[in-house]
């Protein structure tokens, strides 16, 4: 459906509206939007504002603050090695996961798009993991594929070539855990972004390829480089930004694969242990949440800058 149609919401009605008619339509507007707006106010705006307030207070084990501490909570968080370390973890994670998912999903889309028969079958196979939760996938990865003992699949396969068992998730050095974390997310996400690329590929007018062939461009790398990639630019940008925002919110697989470790914690996991762990420090936790919120706002504003306001345009 055309999401780009820009009909004005508040266009003037042709005949001058009678006053009662206008009041009627104002009432209808609030009737339709009211429930949603009230919910948005209570469950989105209020928590953020409350947190902003709470972040200036001492609030442990309670959500009713006791003592005003100014910017102390912010200072605590910004000088906290674990919290700052979690931002480093996110950066490392994003640097690995964004390009690999981008490349894999594009490769899958190109392959599926060129298939003549069994296309629907292969598309479904690559897309199927999208239905699986991060928790279930983490369980398979941790308990079966990358189980550190002999009967884990990875160790079994490596064992056929004479390698020793590797404890994939037991220690940060060597950081084998990144292999586990990255592959689980790749498996879960690639099919989803493949669908976005497939839709974009099918929108490229075939005349472009015909014209390129007439101009003597060889099918393969040349056409890919000069026709396909430029035509996919909007989708590519959207995919990269969606991946980045998704990586920022990573929680499930880190929490489950690296349960109870003090290393390899991305921001949300760190925040979870800070605010809801043994300390229940809601003051510092709120400060941390606001810092993370501000950071993600910067990213989305940048995104808006790059793609124009509204996500649907790029992701279409």
């Amino acid at each position, binding site marked *: *459906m055309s*999401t780009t149609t*820009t009909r004005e*919401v*508040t*266009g003037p*009605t042709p005949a001058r509206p009678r006053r009662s008619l206008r009041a009627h339509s104002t009432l209808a*507007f609030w009737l*339709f*939007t009211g*429930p949603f*707006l009230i*919910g*948005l106010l*209570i469950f*989105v705006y*209020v*928590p*953020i504002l409350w947190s902003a307030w709470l972040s200036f207070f001492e609030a442990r084990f309670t*959500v009713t603050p006791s003592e005003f501490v100014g910017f102390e909570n912010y200072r605590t968080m910004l000088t906290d090695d674990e919290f700052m370390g979690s931002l480093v973890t996110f950066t490392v994670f994003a640097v690995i996961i964004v390009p690999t998912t981008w490349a894999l999903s594009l490769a*899958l889309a190109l*392959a599926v798009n060129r298939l003549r028969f069994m296309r629907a079958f292969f598309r*479904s*196979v*690559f*897309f*199927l*993991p*999208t*239905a699986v*939760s991060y928790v279930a*996938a983490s*369980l*398979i*990865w941790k308990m*079966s594929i990358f189980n550190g*003992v002999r009967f884990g*699949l990875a160790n079994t396969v490596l064992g056929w070539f004479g390698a020793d068992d590797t404890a994939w998730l037991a220690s940060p050095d060597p950081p084998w855990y990144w292999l586990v974390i990255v592959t689980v997310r790749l*498996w879960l996400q690639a099919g*989803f972004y493949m669908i*976005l690329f*497939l*839709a974009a590929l099918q929108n490229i007018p075939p005349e472009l390829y015909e014209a390129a062939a007439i101009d003597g461009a060889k099918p393969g790398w040349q056409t890919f480089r000069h026709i396909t990639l430029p035509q996919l630019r909007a989708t590519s940008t959207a995919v990269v930004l969606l991946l980045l925002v998704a990586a*920022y*919110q990573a*929680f*499930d697989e880190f929490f*489950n694969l690296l*349960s*109870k470790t003090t290393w390899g914690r991305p921001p*949300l996991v760190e*925040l*979870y242990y800070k605010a*809801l762990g043994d300390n229940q420090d*809601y003051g510092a936790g*709120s400060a941390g*949440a606001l810092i993370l*919120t501000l950071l*993600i706002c910067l990213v989305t504003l940048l995104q808006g800058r790059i793609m124009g306001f509204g*996500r649907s345009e790029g992701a279409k």
Partner: protein
Amino acid sequence: MTTRTPRRVRRGNVIGSAGLYAATAVAALLFLVPFYLIVRNALSTDAEITGEEWRFFPTDVQWGNVTEPFDDPTVDFARSLWNSAVVGVAHTVGTLLVCSLAGYGLARIPYRHADKVFYAVLVTLMVPTAVTFVPSFVLVSSLGWVDSYRGLIIPGLFSGFTCFLFRQYFLGFPKELEEAARVDGLGHWGAYWRVVVPNSLNFFAAIATITFISGWNSFLWPLVIGQDPSAWTVQVALSSYMTNQTVNFHLIFMATAISILPLVCVFLFLQRWLVQGIAQTGIKG
């Protein structure tokens, strides 16, 4: 010359497409490995799973494993499945109802300050809900909604993004249909339910599928809210298996299989709408 070129191209094509199929098939096999592992482990005995030799298939398929997660005294698996079903359905129905109405109001009902209201919705798109789980928990716990369906369901209903998607969709909805309804004497409300919704079922189905999957699979919020095991969703229950003292491999993989099954069904039957929805909107909840 004129005959040779096409033939060479064709032969290159045959080799090329055989290579393409081979590579795609290998990738597909790799993508299916985790599913294979779930089924294999769920239907084996622990002795076989942890045995010296790798067994590709259980020597004796253990159908009896199917009931084991339900008999496990440490985790109330049946309860968690039920919780997930209630939360998943209520989350989907509620989100669709609230967000579609708002999207329609913003798109189609003339009101002087509609654009300001719309901006208030747009602003919330900048902040992903997961990032603000601490503030949300603070609010919900002071409402006394911890460990309750209310706490699990209601805070998630007001998705600015879903509302935004509905608005975009309704902007493109043919105006003539509604005008015909107005001529027949229907108000906004009547036109919406009798004309707009029945003619938008594809879009509703797409959003419903995506919303249900993301609701069923969500973990962080249910983990935060479900402090008591009686309020656990199936994802929280699965997560608890991973940190248990004793590990029953066949049991936890059977539980995983059962937790995935409804979604795989939803997925296979509704894939058309799902693909369409994602291609249109670029979201996965």
